[in-house]
């Protein structure tokens, strides 16, 4: 008896609805929005993305079809490329050389990341955000729309406490994201 038949007979016995989740093969975009927080909450202001995410969880104002996730570099491919979200909103601390707590919003341009990375990529082990975006672009697996919220950190030392200016920014960024989520 082949294993396929075995699992088939088990199916008959237990009458379970079985379907192989074939999303990567078929690459069908779904209609959901992914809100993805990057950064380490044990490294001071580097945890600002996760703080915004937790604030969104508490807000009770999330529209249906919104998925909130936190991950590090090793989970980026799975989170960003495997589920075929229509839209991804990424929140992270970004060093911009401006006052701590200053935040920006920008849309990732499609069809430009791969060529940028192809020139310089010397991947160590895990791919960073730009490299994962380039990989997704090359494989046509990226969400149709990618929005990034970046918050200027004051310090990213050891410890879970964020600086005052970055703490203030958390509430503001959360409100803007809630507005953006409810617009569509």
């Amino acid at each position, binding site marked *: 008896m082949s294993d396929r038949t075995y699992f088939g007979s088990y199916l008959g016995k237990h009458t379970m609805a079985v379907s192989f989740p074939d999303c990567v093969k078929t690459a069908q975009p779904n209609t959901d929005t992914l809100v993805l927080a990057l950064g380490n909450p044990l490294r001071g202001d580097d945890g600002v993305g996760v703080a915004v995410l937790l604030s969104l969880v508490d807000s009770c104002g999330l529209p249906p079809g919104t998925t909130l996730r936190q991950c590090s570099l090793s989970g980026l491919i799975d989170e960003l490329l495997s589920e075929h979200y229509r839209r991804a909103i990424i929140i992270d601390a970004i060093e911009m050389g401006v006052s701590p707590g200053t935040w920006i919003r920008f849309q990732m341009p499609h069809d430009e990341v791969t060529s940028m990375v*192809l020139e310089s990529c010397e991947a160590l*082990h895990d791919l960073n955000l730009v490299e994962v975006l380039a990989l997704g672009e090359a494989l046509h697996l990226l969400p149709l729309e990618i929005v990034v919220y970046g918050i200027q950190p004051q310090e990213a030392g050891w410890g879970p406490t964020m600086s005052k200016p970055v703490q203030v920014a958390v509430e503001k960024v959360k409100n803007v994201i809630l507005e953006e989520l409810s617009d569509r």
Partner: protein
Amino acid sequence: MAIQTTKDVKINVHHLTRVEGHGNIVVNVREGILEQCDLQIIEAPRFFEALLRHRPYEHASHIASRICGICAVSHATASLRACENALGVELSEQSVLLRKLNLYAEMLDSHILHMYMLVAPDLLGKGSVIPLAKTDPDVVLRALRMKKVAGDLCATISGRHTHPIAMVVGGFSHYPSEDELFRLGERLVIMREDLDDTVELFKGLSVPSFERETEYIALQKEGEYCIIEGMITSSDGGSWPIEAYQSVTNEYIVPHSTAKHARHQRESYMVGALARLKINYDELHPRAKTTAEILKISPKCINPYLITIAQLVETTHFTEKAIEVIGGLLEKGIVWEEPRPISKDRGEGVGACEAPRGTLYHHYVIGDGMIKEANCIIPTAQNLANIEADMRCLVPNIVDRTPDDITLALEMLIRAYDPCISCSTHMLEVRFV
């Protein structure tokens, strides 16, 4: 055979790419004589044994799994087995099967990552997986599909893809549903098509020919391709209980590395997929043996570049074993069991398992429910001396090539071992001489 030359060659690769952690390659040939040939491990020590001390034994596997984001299940498994052996805990048959299934999943996840993302770009002449995705998207999509199945299997068994939370001392705190296991069984069966395509891909790729005989060490147990406990077994003859691991690993300090080196009956030994395949070939699943025949790898192989091919044989084996174990669990039905209780609150125990890169040991002394002493011996640390011995043997044979070609040959050699450098730099006492 060494090439006769009076040439000078200097190679200095800072931060070798496509390996986990930070290492440098330094080679110096003066007037044809090899003067220096180091794989320098420059990552800072991580002091995990110190982190484990004075912690409740229940915390140990969760702390230990943080040694590595790739072989977290292996570290958790070895840690749990050390605690269970110290405290006299006997696991149920279901827990043993689920622990094995979790390790199969991690082996698949890690091997697929290594074969496709870290090694295939070299063999296909690409700088990394990103240009490979541009030119051969089907190859990379296949890797992502297979990796997703392995990752989902890890998450289903232990509650999380990385850093398992459901595995606890005495068993599990959570069990997968039969529905979840059934679906994963189906996906593994379907994954065979991708596995066949992977074999086809690697069959057509040219791997450097280089041979050096060494000692090969892996766990062995009668009747199975052993991945948890069993006896430590050497290709040079002899086997030892896991409690005698220190007589096998014989760690020592070298000046150019923050990771210790190891040696047994020769100047160095190898652990990992090729060592396992050589020690346990007879226990491979028939489909895996067929894969080995197609890829022309046998227990006689002494080419370290073929470690990747051994990983592919193991990928077939672990896929088939995972299908078998899921089938067996479903046939009996998943039973909710409380973790088995400890029979004492003090003791000393060693846990060992095969991590993707080789044999892993955790050794704890527990008193009043707290970890008093801890020692962790990591596969990559055991392989480092062997990698350098390979480098010293290889360089005189390729010294007539251009520096770029020599560098690539050395990088590919080191990548073949799939080193996990961050894991290996965990020792407590570093004394540079």
